[in-house]
């Protein structure tokens, strides 16, 4: 493996990193200047050649997504930045918006040039108050320095950016739900097709990208796609910010190449598990990914390797659970989240997530029945189709993996009416929302 590039981290570690002066001194906005000398098609070609993939969760090839925007359409085109980070265990975009807002703005502007857009909205979750203020100040700096707005860098490119604040809703991180929210409605995902590239914001061609994805764009333009593609694996290129939390000595953000083994991230970078306890389970890609056992953590953290074992890289939110964790309890917390966040539009998801939470709660309350684990698996299977968006899939994946891989804990809770790990007293659930 070659030298690890700190593509994103180097901007976040500068003193006053959020200020334009610091960013420019580190070479910021040179990529935008270079991009504006290229034809839009050439910019897209470079992002394609770099094989940058979406870092919000789905891993869709970014260059391909940009190429779907119909250039010949005379509708205005929009760039929408997905800053609605909400996948449990994910906090990388918060760091990027707070410490490197100009990196994000530069990437967004390059995307605008590539797809022929003159208007961007940054959708930021409502809870990120501090980051909103920092971004707002950065946009103001950008306008003052003619890096945003009209006639950027004197090159005749107009690109206007404003921020749109969310108001508390996980589902608004789903692209089409985000668009609905941006249009002043509740965040109910849309039926696809049509996809946002053809029918997006206000019915116009729209590209929506995750914060971190856009932050990777300036480096690709400045250093060339081969530089980026030299890092990572055959199909998962570059670096990304892995977020580690839960039972680790050093929770935090770690920028590493795609394909770094999960074991290395947990034990070398995040310091392993406190008090030398053993690892029981880890969700590698946020709450929506399944759980991996301690025998599975040699997997490489890239899109393909995790998909091959029935899991997913997702938002690279690594949540570590030690040997004293009750897996029934952990699954209940995850399921309660999905029940709360289901938008309610699709019956299988709305009813399924609600019933899963209720069944897990009764198991924890000592009132589970023998058939409950199989009932849970049955419900999970009914949720993975018959739905407009993959929230239900995200709820089903952990449900299936926790119950399958830790079946004996569920059976013990049901037959004995208490926890096999001794992790909690009999009645646990307390109040649920």
């Amino acid at each position, binding site marked *: 493996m070659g030298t690890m590039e700190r593509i994103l981290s180097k901007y976040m570690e500068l003193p006053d990193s959020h200020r334009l002066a610091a960013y420019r001194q580190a070479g910021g906005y040179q990529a935008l200047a270079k991009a504006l000398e290229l034809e839009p098609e050439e910019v897209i070609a470079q992002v394609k050649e770099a094989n940058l993939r979406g870092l919000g969760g789905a891993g869709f090839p970014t260059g391909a997504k940009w190429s779907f925007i119909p250039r010949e359409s005379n509708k205005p085109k929009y760039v929408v930045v997905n800053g609605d980070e909400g996948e*449990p*265990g994910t906090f990388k975009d918060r760091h990027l918006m707070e410490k490197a807002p100009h990196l994000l703005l530069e990437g967004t502007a390059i995307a605008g040039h590539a797809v022929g857009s003159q208007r961007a909205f940054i959708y930021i979750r409502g809870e990120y108050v501090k980051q909103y203020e920092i971004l707002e100040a950065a946009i103001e700096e950008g306008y003052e320095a003619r890096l945003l707005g009209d006639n950027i860098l004197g090159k005749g490119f107009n690109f206007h950016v404003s921020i749109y604040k969310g108001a508390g809703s996980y589902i608004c991180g789903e692209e089409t739900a985000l668009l609905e929210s941006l249009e*002043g*409605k509740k965040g109910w995902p849309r039926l696809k097709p049509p996809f946002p590239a053809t029918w997006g914001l206000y019915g116009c061609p729209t590209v929506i990208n995750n914060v971190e994805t856009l932050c990777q764009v300036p480096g690709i333009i400045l250093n060339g796609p081969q530089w980026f593609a030299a890092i990572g694996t055959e199909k998962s290129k570059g670096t990304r910010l892995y977020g580690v939390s839960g039972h680790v000595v050093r929770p*935090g953000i770690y920028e590493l190449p795609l394909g770094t083994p999960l074991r290395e991230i947990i034990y070398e970078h995040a310091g392993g598990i406190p008090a030398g306890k053993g690892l029981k389970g880890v969700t590698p890609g946020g709450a929506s990914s399944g759980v991996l056992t301690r025998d599975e953590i040699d997997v490489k953290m890239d899109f393909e390797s995790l998909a091959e074992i029935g899991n997913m890289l997702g938002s690279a939110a690594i949540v570590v659970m030690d040997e004293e964790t009750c897996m029934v309890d952990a699954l209940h917390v995850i399921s309660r989240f999905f029940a709360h966040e289901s938008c309610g539009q699709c019956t299988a998801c709305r009813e399924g997530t609600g019933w899963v939470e209720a069944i897990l709660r009764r198991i924890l309350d000592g009132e589970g029945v023998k058939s409950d684990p199989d009932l849970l698996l049955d419900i999970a299977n009914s949720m993975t189709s018959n739905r407009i968006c993959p929230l239900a899939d995200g709820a089903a994946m952990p449900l299936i993996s926790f119950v399958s891989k830790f079946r004996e804990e569920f059976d013990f809770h049901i037959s004995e009416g208490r926890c096999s790990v001794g992790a909690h007293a009999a009645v646990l659930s*307390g109040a649920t929302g």
Partner: protein
Amino acid sequence: MSIEFSVAAKDRLKRLLEQYPTPRNGLLPALQLAQEEFGCISPEVEDYVSGLLQIPAAAIRELVSFYTLLHKEPPGKHVLHLCRNLPCHLRGGREIQAYVERKLGIEAEGTTPDGRLTLLQSECLGACEDAPMMMLDGKYYGPLTPEYVDRILDPILSGG
């Protein structure tokens, strides 16, 4: 009591709505502004904004019932969101929740009788490296211990 935006708020609303093709597209930011002005989106506020923007009140009710950061009823002077999701839960989130509930005399969610503080349960706030954590009036605090909770909340509870 008649609901009306201040002059400054009306000006902010005008500039805000200029960014969007239709008033409906600016409804969520308009409601966020209304909540800043009036404390919550009560039925009276719904009717006021409906008339001002010429948008059916049902469309406003749609947003208020969907988005967790919009309040239908006046919250306390301070609003506390306590994270209950997995990374915080793994690092003692439930114990902190129990401590805060005992401290405030509130079960799960509610407002203190003196109206100083509203406690709400929250899903992941995106600060898992500082678990267990909470958001008070839009500011993040963590990792929490009972002592740290006291240091943050006592000034508020005693008269801030």
